[in-house]
C-alpha cells in the first residue's frame, strides 16, 4: 500500500495516520506504534526540511513523498521515497545527546529517533530518481 503526497509540512499528520493505521492492523503494541510513528515522521521531515525546502532546483512535480507500507514476517516494512539529491541518514553518526542539548543544538534528533526506534534501517539512492529509506520494525 502506497501513499503519494506533497512534500510539505502540512502532509506530516496524514503520513503518520497512514502508517499508524496499517501498523495497528499488524498488531503492534501502543509503545511500538509510537516509535514507528515518530521514525516515519522524522524520515519525511528530513526530506521536507533539508532537501525540498533547501533545493530550488527540484521541479515542483518532484516535490512529493511516497510512503509504502507492507507486512513482513513478524513485522512491518516502511519505505519513504523522495525525489531529491542523495542523502544517506544511515551514514550519519548518532549524536552525543548530552553534549548536543547542552550546546542547544536542535538538529540531529530526527535521525537519532529513526535509528533508535526502528529495528532495521537501510538507504538506497537511485541516480536520477531519488532516495529510499527502508525501515523495518518487528512485533
Amino acid at each position, binding site marked *: 500500500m502506497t501513499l503519494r503526497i506533497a512534500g510539505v*509540512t*502540512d502532509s*506530516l*499528520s496524514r503520513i*503518520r495516520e497512514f502508517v499508524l493505521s496499517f501498523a495497528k492492523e499488524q498488531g503492534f503494541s*501502543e*509503545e511500538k506504534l*509510537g516509535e514507528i*510513528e*515518530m521514525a516515519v*515522521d*522524522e524520515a519525511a*521531515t528530513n526530506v*521536507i*526540511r533539508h532537501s525540498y525546502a533547501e533545493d530550488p532546483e527540484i521541479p515542483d512535480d518532484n516535490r512529493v513523498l511516497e510512503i509504502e507500507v507492507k507486512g513482513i514476517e513478524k513485522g512491518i516494512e516502511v519505505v519513504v521515497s523522495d525525489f531529491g539529491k542523495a542523502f544517506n541518514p544511515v551514514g550519519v553518526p548518532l549524536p552525543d*545527546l*548530552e553534549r548536543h*542539548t*547542552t550546546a*542547544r*543544538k*536542535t*538538529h540531529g*534528533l*530526527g535521525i*537519532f*529517533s529513526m535509528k*533508535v526506534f526502528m529495528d532495521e534501517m537501510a538507504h538506497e539512492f537511485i541516480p536520477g530518481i531519488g532516495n529510499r529509506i527502508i525501515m523495518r520494525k518487528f512485533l
Partner: protein
Amino acid sequence: MEINRRESGDVVIFDINGEIDLYNAPEIKEKIKEEMNNGKVNIIINLDKVSYIDSSGIGVLISSLSNLKKVGGALKLINVYASVRKVFELTKLTSFFEIHDSEDDALAAFNN
C-alpha cells in the same frame, strides 16, 4: 494543534492540545517570542493533551528555553506523559528541561 494562553501572576501558561510537528512547531516559538517582546519571560508549557511531539517540536522547546534563559527567564514543562515522555527520555532531555508533575509544582518552583 491548539494553543490556549493563561496567566498566573507573572507566569504565562500555554495549554497545548494536539500533535506537535514541523508543520506547527514554529507557532509555539512565535507565541513565546511574543511573550518575551511583552516582557513575559516565565513560561509554563502544559503538554497534558499533547499526544505526539517530534524532533522539530523538541527543537523549538530547546531553542525557546535557551532564548528565555538569556533574558533571565525560564521555561518549565508540565504533564509530560506516555510517548511524549519517552521521547524526552530517549533524547536525554528529561534532565535538560525542568519537568513538573503539576501546574502547582511548576508555579511554586517559579516563586522559589
